[in-house]
């Protein structure tokens, strides 16, 4: 009900400035936004690269988590990470519709969490079973139930 008003406020805050390495690409409506993120330290896995995130908001945002995934575009690939599938799906507790999400989170704070998830990673690999996962998932993320077996992420 108030999702447009809340996103409008997030947007005006975004226009005032974002943390380093986070940029707004497009926010043409209150359904879908695109953001670019970069890892700022010398991590060789991501150095000099930019990645694009797609945010999808339901009318219940921010009570409900947004659907967030990496998307491919010109010069934008899916980052290698043991919790990021090669179709862009991100396995992050914060984005799960269970108790991970909190309505005080925002587009900016989600971008920062994903940025730091990349910063801390040293493994140049995909999650186990990436091939099968990519084959059977469509883009409806809400029904995906992840098993969080790694408490460090």
């Amino acid at each position, binding site marked *: 009900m108030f999702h447009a008003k809340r996103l409008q406020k997030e947007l005006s805050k975004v226009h005032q400035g974002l943390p380093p390495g986070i940029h707004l690409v497009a926010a043409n409506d209150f359904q879908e936004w695109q953001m670019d993120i970069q890892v700022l330290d010398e991590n060789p896995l991501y150095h000099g690269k930019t990645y694009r995130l797609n945010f999808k908001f339901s009318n219940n945002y921010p*009570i*409900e988590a947004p659907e967030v995934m990496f998307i491919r575009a010109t010069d934008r690939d899916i980052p290698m990470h043991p919790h990021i599938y090669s179709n862009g799906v991100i396995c992050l507790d914060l984005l799960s519709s269970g108790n991970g999400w909190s309505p005080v989170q925002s587009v900016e704070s989600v971008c920062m969490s994903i940025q730091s998830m990349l910063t801390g990673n040293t493994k140049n690999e995909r999650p186990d079973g990436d091939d099968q996962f990519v084959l059977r998932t469509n883009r409806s993320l809400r029904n995906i139930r992840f098993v969080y077996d790694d408490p460090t992420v």
Partner: protein
Amino acid sequence: MSMRAEELKNQGNVCYAAGDYVGAEKFYTQAIIKDSTNAAFFTNRALVRLRMDMYEQVIDDCLKAIDLIPSSLKAYSYLGQAQLKLGYPNEALSSTLRAYELAIAQRSPSVGTIAATCLEVKKKRWELSEERRRTRECNFAMRNARLILFFAPLPGTLEKIQTLEDVFGKAEAARCGKREVPDYLIDNITFSVMLDPVITKHGHSYDRVTLLDHLKRSSTDPLTREPLTEKDLRPNLALRAACETFLKENGWAVDW
């Protein structure tokens, strides 16, 4: 031959749903003639009259419904809307706030809409008082200008009036320019000024309606993620008064 009151009301509902407000109003009136003790007949007629811009009659119907059922959420809600249309924002606010309290107590699904209306009424109240203030100040400035012309028709008088107008213009601009809401009045979920803040056992305050929405999904404090249920919430009266005072002087903040 003659229809029962309940049937007349149902006929009215059919008309209302089809957008035939004149027809609906007639049926509800006939139902009331048959039975003037049913509050629903009055609230239904109030709603259709609200659509027909018959605001005085809406108020009559709502007051009758409230006499019959003092806890009538619909009656207070329509009453507030009619009072607002007629330009009585203070009365409208107390009716709408009463509707809000009833909606919370009755766990009505329309509580979100009613909360939004409360804020709209506060904005309207501020707009009306701003309008009055502007007229008052404008009259004051004009009178001063005339006095200067009358008592001091000397060289340079026109310039003096010009200066006076500049001063008023600047004061107005300063008032409009300073549009900031203190962070402590802002709900962390909606990012808006709070209407009815509640405080959790962890000391954080949220607007009641949205926090209850969140608790339906997850029994946690959104900021600390500690366990939290509706029973742990207490009204934060001091903060509510602060929000109320702020909106009284800064009605624009409702849309901010």
